[in-house]
């Protein structure tokens, strides 16, 4: 059986605190001290922006090598890694180079992206990168369905320093998916 609620008898000091609004005065002292020691925590956002952390994960982008060719080899691993099915890759052979593949079409539905960075981790050739862009508010949701050209453009403006091609970075390693001069071109 729960104890019955009996009205608690106030001690003299408690009674005095009640009639002098002591607790309210304590609260008012707190607010007044904040007014007198005014230190706002506000950041005036559009005018001043906070410094982003080094590992900030912003807008996704497709990258290029330093000779301007796309890094993407169309392997679909990013599509497989993506937990929210943002990415759709249409892979194809490079015309005239039967051992080499590329992504003929590459779509990202950024309305669903949760910026986990798993696609970047999954990419075997580091063709994907996360930029530091975050101001991507748009008036039409469809503007967030990005195609390959748009993603490459984001990469171009966010990563001005590009890598060399892989085979030039590591001359002693044999690479898959790199054209060899002695492989005869596929007859058309």
């Amino acid at each position, binding site marked *: 059986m729960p104890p019955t609620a009996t009205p608690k008898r106030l001690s003299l000091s408690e009674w005095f605190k009640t009639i002098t609004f002591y607790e*309210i005065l304590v609260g*008012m002292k707190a*607010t*007044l001290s*904040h*007014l007198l020691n005014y*230190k*706002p*925590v*506000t950041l005036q956002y559009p005018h001043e922006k906070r410094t982003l952390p080094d590992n900030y994960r912003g807008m996704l982008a497709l990258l290029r090598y330093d000779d301007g060719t796309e890094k993407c080899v169309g392997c679909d691993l990013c599509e497989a890694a993506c937990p929210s099915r943002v990415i759709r890759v249409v892979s194809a052979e490079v015309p005239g180079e039967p051992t080499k593949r590329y992504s003929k079409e590459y779509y990202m539905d950024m309305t669903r992206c949760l910026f986990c960075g798993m696609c970047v981790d999954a990419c075997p050739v580091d063709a994907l990168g996360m930029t530091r862009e975050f101001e991507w508010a748009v008036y039409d949701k469809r503007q967030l369905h990005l195609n390959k050209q748009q993603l490459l453009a984001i990469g171009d403006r966010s990563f001005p320093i590009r890598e060399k091609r892989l085979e030039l970075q590591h001359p002693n390693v044999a690479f898959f998916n790199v054209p060899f001069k002695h492989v005869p071109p596929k007859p058309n």
Partner: protein
Amino acid sequence: MSEFGLRLAISLTQIAAVMGIVVVTVLLLTLAERKVLGWMQDRMGPMEVGPYGILQPFADAIKLFFKEDIIPAGANKFLFTMAPVLCLIPAFIGFAVIPWGPNWTLEIGGITVKPFVISDINIGILYILAFASIGAYGIILGGWASNSKYSLLGGLRSAAQIISYELNVGLSIIGVVILAGSLSLVKITDAQAGWFWNWYLFALPAPQIFAFVVYVISSVAETNRVPFDLPEAESELVAGFFTEYSGLRFAFFFLAEYANMVLVSCVAAALFLGGWNAPYPGTILELLGFPSLSWIESTMWFAVKTYSFLFLFFWLRATLPRLRYDQLMRFGWKVLLPIALANIVVTAIAVFITQ
């Protein structure tokens, strides 16, 4: 010009001046409230319009003027249109009897004019209380005519709250009226001249400290301000009685709330804090040899008292959470009402013995 025409012209000039001051004060208050509230909560308040956001009231006013005026389907159109006006007029009309400065008289064209009070009627306080009660009709009718459950609940709460707390306002004022022997605000203020211990807050034989506390709490409740903002409790009732209002009608309600705040602050300053009297006898400007300019000092003292009272409104709003409805009613009827009644009895006995 005939005497009537001259009287009319002088009165209209005074009314225009007072209305101008009140509207400017309300504009200032909307900004000051947001700024002070922000500073107390470690925010900045409005910062975008003008340097440090000082033009924000004008931006708000322009926005409210040009918003679409919506009358909800099923609303009682006549009452819906009437309610904001019914709320606004009583809020402004009370300023007619507030003395802003010393009780001087001027002779203009053979007519005696009191420059610092529009109308020195001998029932000043009664007049203010009567019109404050009419303001409650605006809120109730606005809530009822909107055809919305939130508005209706807000209006009902407001009706109960205003009736309960206006009683306390009236009773807390009676002590002062007993001491002064007059209902005229001019006479009450004049009776508090001299040092600050002549103010009715401290005056012998019966200091009205308890009455002042009751008045402050009840006036906060009467103007529907935090912590007594149950009629417009936004977490429960969307916006209370003006949920369905938009545009200019909403602006009227808003203006009425702030004008009411200024009015109760002016009344508190006039009744308990000596009105335009400085805390010392006379004025400094008079001692320095500018007796014709001493009204500036007097009105400044009135402004200081009124504005510090208004600051208290913001301060309470930044500090306190909203009361529950039963707490509000219990506090009003079981705590404040007995205190106010006891104060009347004590004051009456003290005045009877000392006279």
